[in-house]
């Protein structure tokens, strides 16, 4: 009997919960959509940030099952969107790089959907928490904030690091190509000048 009751509690307290974060590549002139099936009254949060590529901007829009645009932002470097659904269906979040002809972008995406799940299925919210338990819950919430702040700093650092790496490799490339260019121009100038003063026979390459 007790087990049936706990099973009943289990079934009523199951939330389909989901959270994922990753960085994906968005090729130039491309659009990438992520879809999620959601129930009525579900709460979801979306955070995105452009880590590298071009002008560090991306178009993002979120549409619901009936193609109503819930959120639309053009050329933003980072954005955040929260919403509680009013209908059941497939919601989509699309990222577009169509305005860029040759820079592919790396975009970080953090998608959270549903309430936070219970640690143990038996931890129903029906009974009041003891002081110790509520302390644990507050510490847990604070640690989540710390973790999110770390993620924010990690993304900013990734952005700067990628730019610094590009500069580092570009400096070598530029200096080598400039050396070659210098020599070509120096020799070319001398040759051209000599050709002005050559006899009427025509420009003759004088051995140096």
């Amino acid at each position, binding site marked *: 009997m007790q087990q049936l009751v706990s099973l009943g509690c289990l*079934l009523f307290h*199951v939330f*389909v919960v989901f959270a994922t974060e990753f960085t994906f590549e968005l090729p130039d002139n491309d659009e990438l959509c992520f879809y999620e099936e959601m129930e009525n009254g579900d709460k979801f949060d979306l955070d995105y940030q452009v880590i590298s590529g071009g002008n560090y901007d991306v178009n993002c829009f979120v549409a619901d099952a009936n193609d109503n645009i819930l959120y639309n932002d053009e050329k933003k470097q980072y954005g955040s969107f929260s919403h509680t659904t009013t209908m059941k269906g497939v919601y989509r979040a699309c990222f577009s790089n169509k305005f860029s002809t040759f820079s592919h972008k790396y975009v970080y995406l953090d998608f959270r959907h549903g309430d936070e799940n219970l640690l*143990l299925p038996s931890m129903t919210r029906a009974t009041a928490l003891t002081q110790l338990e509520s302390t*644990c819950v507050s510490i847990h919430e604070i640690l989540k904030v710390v973790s999110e702040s770390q993620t924010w700093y990690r993304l900013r650092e990734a952005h700067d690091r990628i730019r*610094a790496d590009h500069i580092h490799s570009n400096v070598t490339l530029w200096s080598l190509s400039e050396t070659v260019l210098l020599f070509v121009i120096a020799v070319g100038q001398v040759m051209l000048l000599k050709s002005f003063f050559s006899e009427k026979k025509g420009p003759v390459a004088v051995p140096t």
Partner: protein
Amino acid sequence: MTSRVNGDSFSSTLVVEEGFSFKMLAAAAIRVLLVAAFIHPSYALYFHIGETEKKCFIEEIPDETMVIGKYRTQLWDKQTNSYLPSTPGLGMHVEIKDPDTKVILSRQYGSDGRFTFTSHTPGEHKICLHSNSTKMALFAGGKLRVHLDIQVGEHTNNYPEIAAKDKLTELQLRARQLLDQVEQIQKEQNYQRYREERFRMTSESTNQRVLWWSIAQTVILIVTGIWQMKHLKSFFEAKKLV
């Protein structure tokens, strides 16, 4: 933030209870069936992938961090104009590269797969998926729907399982969760220190290169100028113009 509840963790917590008589087993089996009927595992976030397309996801993680990825594929069926719930014979090739672009996992999985790896170097790990169908005819439609769920660090922990294995009370389990969170924060901080060091080395190396290049450029310019003048002077003297 989330530890997902799915059919597996339910069955493990239920089976821990008293006794192992046949009645208990039968009751447990019925419970599992009831539970499974109400909850279907839906790794929600999905995207579409073409036939030969390779989709890569980057996870920037500290070292000794576990990553669990789960995917589910659905094939477009032209007859019913919808996605089939499951298609045997469909496979995905999963390739995971570590920050030094060394391949740490390269395996073929079925249409539903689960891959796990633990990072040994901190940095950007690349998880690449591309379809590798055993029956090419299946791909006439060309569109494949892939449900993906990637969990990192303390989100990979299955707390009901840990509670059952170590026989922890609720309070102990909460403390355990906090401990895992703090450990992950500490790993992330170490990673931050490591990143800052590398960033500083890159900047200093760039600074050195720019400095040497400026000196070299000045020297080259002076030498080239002198050579040009000398050469032209001797040329004009030979032409008896000077």
